[in-house]
């Protein structure tokens, strides 16, 4: 499953990335979106970016990028 498919208010564990293209994967990791990290999906509205809560900060991730982040949904 990808981050783009997660519902608002759900939690997920980051598994990995579909494209290991330089640049953006490094940036995501530097901002705390690392394999194994638990994130809360604050907001995922149609066509808009996904808003995450990770390591104490709110991040906005564009849909295109969110589609390349693999996650495992967590209960609660």
């Amino acid at each position, binding site marked *: 499953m990808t981050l783009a498919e997660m519902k608002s208010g759900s939690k997920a564990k980051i598994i990995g990335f579909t494209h290991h293209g330089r*640049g953006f994967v490094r*940036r995501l*990791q530097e901002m705390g979106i690392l394999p194994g990290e638990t994130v809360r999906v604050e907001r995922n509205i149609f066509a808009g970016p996904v808003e995450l809560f990770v*390591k104490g900060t709110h*991040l906005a991730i564009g849909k295109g*990028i969110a589609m390349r982040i693999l996650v495992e949904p967590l209960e609660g």
Partner: protein
Amino acid sequence: MGKSVIFNQLTGGKQIIGNWPGKTVEKAEGLIEQEGFKIRVIDLPGIYSLSTYSEEEVVSREFIASKHPDLVIDVIDACNLERNLFFLFQLIELEVPIVVCLNQYDILEAKGLEIDCEKLSKHLGVPVIKTVATKNKGLTELFRVMKEILLQEKKPLGRVRYGKEVEERIAKLKQEIEQRENSSYPPRFVAIKLLENDPLITSQVKSQELSSLAENLKRELEAIHGEQAETVIISERYSVASRIAELVTRKKGASRRDLTDKVDNLLLHRVAGYLILIALVLLIFFIVFKFGSFLSEEISALFNPLIQYLENLSLPGFLKGLLVHGLLEGVVAGLAIVLPYIAPFYFLLAILEDTGYLARIAFLTDFLMHKLGVHGKAFIPLIESLGCNVPAILGTRIMERKRDRFITSVLATLIPCSARSVIIFGLVAVFLGPFYALLIYLIDFLIIFLVGLLLNRYLKGLPSGLIMEMPRLQKPVLKIIFRQTWIRLRDFTNFALPIIVGANLVMEILILTNSVEPISRVFAPISWFLGLPAFATVALLFGFLRKELTLVMLATFYGTTNFGAILTGEQIFIFGLVTMIYIPCIATIAALKREFGAMKALLVTAGEIIGAIIIGGLLSLFMRAL
């Protein structure tokens, strides 16, 4: 966050402050002079890491490595200790003396938390000071510690150690680097960046042995952890950061309920969010127009007696022309036509900046901006552009890639800056009514959208996605808002006003020497095509210096501000539209040249002039045909 505030408090400086990440796009310098000390302070762009993802980061990294500052002040958001330690560790790896400011400490306390500064300082090996920059708290202490460190022989460099597997490999690489390479960066920093696969540092390695050693070590790390080497290093850094953050943070009391989440739910709502955005834009438009036109009349009335008085004096005609129409009316034009509209706009813009709403706009408009080949962050320089295109073009540096920056800059040049809004408000809205003013804005936004679509379609490269930190919403601090407005207005009176007055004098001389006619005749074909009086094209020409001049020149030439008596409704509309579209001004062209080179600047300039004439001309022919 808060870095520019601290800079300003320390130096009494005039950095523009905003509540969104990455607005310090130019290095700013200031001087502290106190107790016989002189300390030069430089404000570097705010960054997340010292990797090479964006130009900002490279700039900051190279600056620190090559200039060897005596001290680096790392301003940390106290509420985000873990994340900020992640960055601090990289700074420590650059082996520069550091002092840490735990800023926005009041917000941390409101959350019912506290940080043991002494313990933190012990773990890091550098001094840590609590500050609340907006309330001027902790800055005396900061200055005291800075002074102490600068006088010390042995400066606090800090230390950070990672897990055994990583440290062993760093040590091996470091040894090799010390023997073979000569870099402005410390060997340990280079070693870590090589393991991290930093493109720039990797490409600078000259020794073949070193490259292959780095490759081997990376593969070993990847074998142990089952992840890319860069992921291993980043995880390692975060795990040390989170361990330290946990050790020094304590729960102190009940956390006060945070309202900002609820407000955010509304501001970012899929329907309400957009309605609020549109309502806000309309509100700003309304306030600027109402307040501006009121102020404009008041200021004009203030100067009228003086002009009347000078007009009645018995002076030689030539001198009187220069003095009254050239000099005085130039000043009045600047103060009465221009200032009334830009002052309320800058005030409202400062509020938007300070609250953090700009980042919310970026969030809401991300999908729209993707159609234009850029992401939501582009909206921030575009909003700034409503004030002035020049800082907006520099501000595109918050975008990570060159392609994004270029597209955003071209769009920014089409955004109606305050100078152009003055024309629309002062000419179109006043003489045709607000509806037609709005119509010109709508046409302009349509053009911007089409240009964006075209650029995205035909420029090489792929659009990039949005990765943005959402700053906390905060109540605007009135003092900061006023200072912000004042800084921008002072720029206007210092730079723009002299140009307006100077151009006005030149115009008056042209009138007095009867040279306007011949110049107008040269541009007669364009004037005919646009359906404007011959002189209007000359006025447009002056607009290259500053866009307001188009209107000011009309007033000077015809000797009246009652434009309804000189131009027909159609002419006012066309004049406003063409002014809106053709390239902003000479300063904007210079900014484009500086950022993207002469060739691109020329292309954009030529394209927009030709585009404006064609659009204006066709519309005019169409209206005349009706």
